[in-house]
C-alpha cells in the first residue's frame, strides 16, 4: 500500500500572513509571490495532513479547486509532493550575529573629532562589519583619504563604502587608484561632481547629485534569508547600527535629531550598549502601526523616523 502524498513548500519559501492577503517569500530567488489568506491556511493544513485528507474540506463542492491551487504552486516551483514530509525540516528562522555592530555611518570632514581614536578603533573593538563614510572635503586632502583607506585595510570591517564630496584633487585617476589600493572598498561615489562618470561599473562613480536629495521615496524591498529572519524580531534599518555626524554626535541614524552623546566626550562602545540607544533596534515591523498588517512587512525597507504610540512597544512612522 502506498504512503499518502503531502505537499510542502521548499524550505526557502516561507509564507507570511497579512490582514487582507498573504505572501510567500522566496528567500533564495529574492521574490515575493502574493497569495490569498485561504491559500495561506491551506498551506498550513497541508503541512500536517495528506493531500487527500485535505481535499474534501477545502473544495467546498468544487473537487478541482485544491488541485488547481496545487498546480499553480507547483508550476511556480514553490513546492513539491512527497511521501516523507518528516525528512524535510523547515528553515531555521533564528537570526544570530556575533558582532555588536553591523553598520556604522560616519560623517566626517577631518576637523571636528579624531576619526581614528574616537570612532574607528572603538568600531573595530565592536567588530563592526560595514562602514559607510560620508566625507565632506572642505578641509580634507588626498593624503587624508589615503591614510584612512590604509588604516582600514588591517581592521575587522568587511566592507567600506565612501560617499565623498567632490573636490578638485579627486581626479578619476586618483579615485581609481584609491579603489584599487583598498580592497575593502565596496562603493566609492564622488557626489556633487561637475558631471556623471562611471569609473568602474557598479563600484566607482562621479555623480552630480548631492546628498540632500539622496534618492527616490518609493518603497524598496530586500528579500533574502538574513533580512527576513532579522525582521522577525528587529528593525533591519536600525538594528546593530550607529551613526556619527560631522560634529561627533552619536545617533541611531543621521536623519534623526536624538543624540546619545559625542564621540569626543563619551565612549562610543559604552553608548551603543546602552538600552535606550538600542531601543529602536527592536522596533520590528510587527510593532509598526503602518506595516504590521501587511504581508510584505518582513521584506520592506523602512528608512523612516519612528515615534512611539500610546500602546507600549508600538511605533508609528513619524510625520515630518
Amino acid at each position: 500500500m502506498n504512503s499518502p502524498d503531502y505537499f510542502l513548500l521548499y524550505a526557502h519559501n516561507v509564507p507570511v500572513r497579512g490582514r487582507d492577503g498573504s505572501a510567500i517569500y522566496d528567500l533564495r530567488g529574492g521574490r515575493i509571490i502574493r497569495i490569498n489568506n485561504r491559500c495561506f491556511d491551506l498551506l498550513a493544513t497541508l503541512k500536517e495532513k495528506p493531500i487527500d485528507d485535505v481535499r474534501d474540506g477545502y473544495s467546498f463542492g468544487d473537487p478541482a479547486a485544491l488541485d488547481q491551487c496545487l498546480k499553480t504552486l507547483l508550476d511556480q516551483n514553490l513546492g513539491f509532493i512527497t511521501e516523507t514530509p518528516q525528512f524535510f525540516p523547515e528553515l531555521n528562522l533564528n537570526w544570530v550575529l556575533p558582532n555588536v555592530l553591523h553598520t556604522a555611518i560616519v560623517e566626517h570632514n577631518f576637523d571636528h573629532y579624531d576619526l581614528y581614536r574616537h570612532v574607528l578603533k572603538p568600531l573595530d573593538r565592536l567588530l563592526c562589519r560595514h562602514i559607510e563614510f560620508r566625507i565632506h572635503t572642505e578641509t580634507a586632502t588626498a593624503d587624508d583619504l589615503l591614510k584612512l583607506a590604509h588604516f582600514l585595510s588591517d581592521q575587522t570591517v568587511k566592507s567600506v563604502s565612501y560617499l565623498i564630496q567632490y573636490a578638485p584633487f579627486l581626479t578619476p585617476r586618483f579615485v581609481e587608484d584609491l579603489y584599487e589600493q583598498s580592497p575593502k572598498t565596496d562603493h566609492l561615489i564622488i557626489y556633487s561632481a561637475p558631471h556623471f562618470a562611471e569609473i568602474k561599473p557598479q563600484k566607482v562613480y562621479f555623480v552630480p547629485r548631492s546628498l540632500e536629495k539622496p534618492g527616490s521615496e518609493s518603497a524598496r524591498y530586500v528579500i533574502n534569508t538574513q533580512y527576513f529572519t532579522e525582521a522577525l524580531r528587529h528593525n533591519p534599518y536600525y538594528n546593530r547600527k550607529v551613526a556619527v555626524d560631522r560634529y561627533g554626535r552619536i545617533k541611531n541614524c543621521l536623519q534623526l535629531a536624538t543624540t546619545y552623546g559625542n564621540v569626543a566626550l563619551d565612549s562610543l562602545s559604552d553608548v551603543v550598549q546602552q538600552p535606550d540607544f538600542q531601543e529602536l533596534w527592536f522596533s520590528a515591523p510587527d510593532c509598526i502601526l503602518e506595516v504590521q498588517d501587511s504581508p510584505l512587512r518582513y521584506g520592506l525597507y523602512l528608512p523612516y523616523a519612528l515615534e512611539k504610540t500610546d500602546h507600549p512597544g508600538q511605533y508609528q512612522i513619524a510625520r515630518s
Partner: protein
Amino acid sequence: MTTLDVMTLFPEDMLAQLPLTFRFMTPIESSTFEENCTEYRFGRSLRHFSGQYISLGSYKPLSNIIYEDFLTQEP
C-alpha cells in the same frame, strides 16, 4: 588570470600511476580566475590573523541612501 607556478601536488610513487599531465599542474590565484565569477577581493584583518580576509558587501542597504537609486536618477 594569474598563473603562479608549474608544479605537482603528488608524490613520485603516485605520479607513476597517473597520466603525465599530473606532473604539470598550475595553481591559479582564485580572485583572478574569471570562470569562478567571484570577483572577490581580499584584504587583511589583524584581529583574525588573516592576510586573506575576504571583502564582502552587506545583505541590506547600509543607510537611507540606496546606491542603485543614487547612481541612476537625475540630480
